[in-house]
């Protein structure tokens, strides 16, 4: 052995010459460490009674083959149902309050002698879009995020990963991907960074490329709003349940697409065999409720909202300008929307929606505000009394059908990641090629799915 080692440290030699030896060596090193840890633990730890049983029993249910998935869907459905039922009333109150303020600001502006174009720009462009955004997005977020944070703090998310491990292995990727997806529910950029916990570079890349298929904080409000105003009212009387079911279906679709794309990638571009991993199921912990409410409102709700508002305000102004600068008879906005119209129609949507998605690249939170602004700028301006006004704007004035709603939800779920996420992907993969792939794969998927859905008539 000594002789071999002398060779090994010799500059001319390489460690790989002795594969068998170094293999057993590293095994022995690890074994010694484990043995030592066992020795110390034996002297320090004593168990007086068998460890608490209730969490094991709970785990048996939450991670069982039979109950695992139903429980998962029920929990998600329940959270969304509470969100949707709870958000209706505060949304209306907020809308009424914000638009009574519009009156006040408008009068003040006119009293100060502001010209008409300034009134239009500030009140009809900037303020009105802001009011829409806040009243539509704030209440659902203020309910959804704390509930979701409670699930997170309870320790439920790793159980989800455990349940889904089998599916991911069949798709040729790593079960840890489910954890990075859970992170993606918060923010896809964070989800992409979380992919570092995956050891195999191949599986890591798959996880990075597909992380975008789980809806992030910025996209949940869109999914919920669409589900409520378009699908909830259209199908039958139990609007809230329908809407909650629609969002659950959207999330499941996202997971299904993740698996399908992972499967496709692991059979084509990123071939390989899935590796094993150990996942620690953390103990269930009683969440600190007060802290959760504060944290989830400060960190998530206000963060998402402020991003939406900060960009929506200037965007509202810009869109107003675009809609009011005309060449000939048609405004710039009209030109762009008309240009995109055929593509939009092909995907079951229209030009304005597509424009909103494209302009929403910096942040997904922007899509709803941009859409509303686009419509309001081209159509007649809508006074809002309550949330059904949004429905009036979309359905009655711009001809949305439930199919439009479904396509918007699907496109939002599957389309290209936001700019922040793309930057993270570039930083993580250090490759322009993979960043482009991370843009194109979702885009093509979204186009394909929307095209198929909108063209299959039941």
């Amino acid at each position, binding site marked *: *052995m*000594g002789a071999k*080692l*002398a060779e090994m*440290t010799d*500059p*001319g030699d*390489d*460690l790989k010459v002795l594969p068998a030896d*170094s*293999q057993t*060596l*590293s095994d*022995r*090193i*690890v074994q*010694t*460490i*484990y043995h*030592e*840890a*066992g020795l*110390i*633990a034996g*002297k*320090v*730890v*004593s*168990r*007086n*009674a*068998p*460890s*608490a049983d209730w969490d094991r029993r709970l785990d048996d249910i939450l991670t069982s083959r039979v109950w695992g998935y139903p429980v998962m869907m029920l929990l998600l459905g329940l959270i969304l149902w509470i969100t949707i039922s709870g958000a209706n009333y505060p949304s209306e109150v907020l809308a009424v309050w914000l638009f009574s303020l519009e009156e006040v600001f408008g009068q003040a502006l006119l009293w100060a002698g502001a010209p008409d174009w300034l009134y239009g720009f500030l009140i009809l462009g900037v303020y009105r879009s802001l009011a829409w955004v806040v009243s539509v997005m704030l209440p659902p977020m203020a309910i959804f995020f704390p509930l979701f944070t409670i699930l*997170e*703090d*309870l*320790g439920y*998310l*790793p159980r989800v990963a455990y349940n889904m491990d089998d599916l991911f292995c069949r798709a040729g990727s790593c079960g*840890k991907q489910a*954890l*990075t997806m*859970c*992170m993606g529910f918060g923010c896809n950029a964070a989800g992409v*960074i*979380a992919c*570092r*916990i*995956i*050891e195999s570079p191949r599986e890591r890349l798959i996880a990075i490329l597909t992380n975008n298929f789980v809806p992030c904080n910025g996209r949940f409000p869109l999914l919920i709003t669409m589900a409520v105003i378009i699908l909830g009212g259209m199908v039958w009387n139990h609007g809230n349940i329908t809407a909650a079911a629609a969002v659950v279906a959207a999330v499941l679709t996202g997971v299904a697409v993740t698996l399908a794309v992972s499967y496709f990638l692991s059979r084509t571009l990123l071939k390989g065999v899935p590796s094993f991993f150990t996942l*620690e199921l*953390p*103990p269930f*912990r009683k*969440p*600190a409720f007060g802290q959760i409410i504060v*944290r989830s409102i*400060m*960190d998530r709700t206000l963060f998402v909202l402020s991003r939406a508002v900060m960009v929506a305000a200037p965007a509202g102004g810009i869109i107003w300008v675009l809609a009011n600068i005309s060449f000939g008879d048609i405004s710039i906005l009209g030109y762009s929307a008309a240009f995109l119209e055929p593509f939009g129609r092909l995907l079951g949507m229209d030009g304005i929606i597509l424009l909103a998605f494209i302009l929403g690249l910096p942040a997904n939170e922007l899509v709803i505000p941009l859409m509303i602004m686009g419509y309001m700028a081209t159509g007649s301006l809508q006074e809002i009394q309550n949330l059904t006004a949004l429905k009036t704007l979309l359905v009655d004035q711009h001809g949305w059908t439930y199919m439009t709603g479904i396509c918007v939800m699907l496109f939002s779920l599957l389309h290209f990641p936001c700019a922040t996420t793309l930057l993270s992907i570039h930083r993580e993969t250090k490759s322009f090629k993979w960043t482009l792939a991370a843009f194109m794969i979702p885009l093509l998927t979204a186009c394909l799915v929307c095209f198929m859905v909108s063209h299959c008539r039941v």
Partner: protein
Amino acid sequence: MGKAQLLKLPRKFPLPEQTPPVIALAGNPNTGKSTIFNLLTGLKQHTGNWPGKTVLLSSGSYYYQQQEYKLVDLPGTYSLLANSPDEESARDFLCFARPQATVVVADATCLERNLNLILQVLEITSQMIVCVNLLDEAKRKHISLDLKALEVELGVPVVATTASRGRGINRLKEAIKDMAAGRTNVTPRRIIYDEEVEMALQQIQFQMAETLENCQIDRRFLALRLLDGDQTLIRKAADHKNLEDKVWAQSLLK
């Protein structure tokens, strides 16, 4: 993320002496590291009850008795064998940034598994404090720990905390203060490997002593990594600015 800034691994080592002492926070995933980080720094990094929440190094600072301390939260790992990028970044930070004290947060409910990491950190640095956290949960599960015995076994300070209720944090600050000021006597437990491994280690170390005079990394650890067939560390050591004899290290790599 609060105000915590993300740290890239410092390119230039070591840190200048007048800067505040750097304290590293290591530990298995989901042991409450982030909670302790938040308690010490007052930052509001979101903590989650699942492993893998912290994959980046985040840093913050705090004052204790008029002295500033810089705290770096390492990614939670089960080992430092550098199997994955997060393990590698945790190990590299301990090796190259050489914090004045390293706090390893351990889960009281499964100490044995946590000890694996503790023993590995102990091979890199003896400036270590073990922080046994989640004592309330251990109590609920009827697990009792003899922390005095643990201190004797490991030869480094052991502090008990229940971070979710903020218990034990002052004792931890006190232990950090003593260690950063060099007032703590440590007699770190060294793992003795089997005869063959030990002989090989000695031989490699002997060669290093001749050629790697200014290497800051613990030679035994470096030798151990080489023996394990892991060349990433020596490769980084070879790129290291302060290393006088790069040639040897680089030739070793070939």
